[in-house]
């Protein structure tokens, strides 16, 4: 496929997604899209609805209404298995690891490798995990202990390995660097760039505006469940985006007084 055709059909289109909890509209008619080889950052304050929005794509939560298209085709995602079948992998903010199980067990959870007798092939899973870790986090070698006893960075590596191992086409990262130190954060940044170059589309949820500007191609801002707007990173400044997050207006619509208040 040429660059042209890729650009014509988005990898993911989410249209007019709505999710309500009781009477609260956590996500209120948000539309976002994602192209292959692109990083779209979803930003917004706490409780803006970023995570809820993205959960409708990862299958963790069902949307009340709205439409999801993958490669231009309408799809229904009722559970995480549906999402995985469509090539959507998610790295959750909570990491979603079974604390009592070791790294290979977690990495292959739900997709265990089996021996020819149908039993778990622990050695093969350990070996595969070692290969992935050699790339992601070479210092992490004590794979056979329960993840509960691993460091934050190691646990994050397991969660990331779980997502990148399966040739995903779409990866959702919910605060992938929240628990990491500077060196590990740089590592995750490198990984995102590498995945991007492989043509994978990435939704990145982040609080860190510097990370967002460093990694994202486009930035979608949500406020109180509504989409403020989506901008190209190259067209805006960090201040513009902060304005969108806090005031909820596109850069051009922000008045002089509002701009001054923002810096007050």
């Amino acid at each position: 496929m040429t660059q042209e055709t890729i650009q014509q059909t988005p990898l993911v289109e989410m249209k007019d997604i709505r999710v309500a909890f009781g009477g609260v509209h956590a996500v209120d008619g948000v539309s976002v899209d994602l192209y292959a080889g692109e990083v779209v950052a979803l930003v917004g304050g706490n409780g803006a609805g970023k995570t809820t929005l993205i959960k409708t794509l990862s299958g963790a939560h069902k949307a009340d209404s709205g439409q999801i298209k993958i490669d231009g085709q309408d799809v229904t995602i009722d559970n995480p298995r549906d999402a995985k079948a469509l090539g959507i992998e998610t790295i959750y903010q909570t990491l979603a690891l079974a604390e009592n199980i070791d790294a290979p067990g977690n990495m292959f959870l739900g997709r265990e490798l089996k021996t020819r007798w149908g039993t778990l092939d622990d050695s093969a899973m350990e070996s595969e995990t070692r290969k992935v870790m050699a790339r992601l986090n070479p210092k992490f070698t004590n794979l056979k202990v329960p993840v509960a006893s691993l460091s934050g960075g190691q646990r994050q590596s397991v969660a990331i390995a779980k997502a990148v191992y399966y040739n995903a086409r779409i990866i959702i990262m919910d605060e992938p660097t929240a628990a990491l130190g500077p060196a590990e954060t740089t590592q995750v940044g490198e990984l995102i760039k590498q995945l991007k170059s492989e043509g994978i589309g990435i939704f990145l949820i982040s609080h860190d505006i510097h990370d967002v500007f460093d990694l994202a191609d486009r930035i979608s801002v949500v406020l109180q469940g509504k989409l403020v707007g989506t901008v190209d990173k190259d067209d805006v400044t960090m201040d513009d985006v902060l304005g969108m997050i806090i005031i909820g207006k596109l850069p051009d619509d922000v008045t002089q007084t509002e701009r001054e208040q923002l810096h007050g």
Partner: protein
Amino acid sequence: MPDTDAEETAAAPASTAGKGAGGIAGFFRTAEIDTRLLGMIGALIIMWIGFNIMSGGTFLTARNLWNLTVQTSVVAIMATGMVLIIVTRNIDLSVGSALAAIGMAMALLQTEILPDIFGIGHPAIWIISLAAGIAMGAAIGGLQGAIVAYVGVPSFIVTLGGLLVWRGVAWWMASGRTIAPMDATFQIFGGGARGTIGGTWTWVIGIAGCIGIIALMVSRRRQRIKFGFTPRPMWAEIGIGTVVCAVVIGAVAVINSYPMPELLARKYAEENGIAWPEGGLTIAQGLATPVLVALVVALVMQFMATRTRYGRYVYAIGGNPEAAELAGVKTRWTIVKTFMLMGVLVAIAAAVLIARLNAATSGMGQLSELYVIAAAVIGGTSLSGGVGTIPGAVLGALVMQSLISGMVLMGVDAPLQDIVVGIVLIVAVALDSFYQRKAV
């Protein structure tokens, strides 16, 4: 013996135990020995020696140890299932009552319904009774599990209801009568006069067990080398293999040194055309059927818990239900399956119990839910979920039964026995949680 796969129970916290400590802990870690299980075995041995001294040498006799294995079977069979139930953060309080209901159904089938169809003693009778019992167990478990998993009623409540319901059902099926006697072939499940496999077969099983253990260790070692991992040091392999096989052979020797009572031996000699010599014959009874059933159940359960996807999902759900769900595991169905498995094990235990008693009463199995849960918990199963092993539960059942048996031999009053068992349960869990906190 189920205690060979110590390092296979990767989900247990024991594999992290001893971290950061020197000498002895380091030795166990290098040898990959489950220190927790070893501790339990140590406690059991101390208890046995203590009881032997206090009961004036009657505890550590072949006769008592043989009886101990038979008495442990029923609780051990159910405890292996209870481990998985508790690992998924659930509980099953209904097992004692379900045992009575299923036992009663099997008893009625083989005494009042099937003989009318096939005639007394027909081989179809025991087969159909057992199959029907197992199906009933799976149905009871499936029903309770479905209410827990799909309706969302806490398992404590569902099975507390079950505790009342199935006890009532057991009474209602025969209006409270005692149903006896069981089908002659069915009685074999209970041990008793014909329910032993004999000395020769016990040796065959013991030796086959040793060969199996060694084969497993060799295949594990090959597998590790194939994938380029450091295998367990050779001295550890040989040492563990030798000790485990010695224990198996020793157990067989002890079991086989308990001979048939004279009356039975005389009958056996007559049936087999052996002349009755002066001074009597010593014929080994060998392993009792209930013990054989419990061993097979423990092996199958250990395999399911550690070598299958299902087992992995059970532990994953216990560790983090949300993560398991997000990883695409069918968590609800896994929980239903676990309750069904528990029901099947209750049915097997019921078959053993009614065969042993040669009767079924609606009061059978009262309080056994508590003994089963206690066995699992003493065996290291954590009520907060995610942690527990099958060998641990079997050992837990053995600890409980040793305690009761020892106190009986010492002539301790029944109420005092309950008090001691209750206190030991609490102390065991307290010690364990203290140890766990230190280990992590």
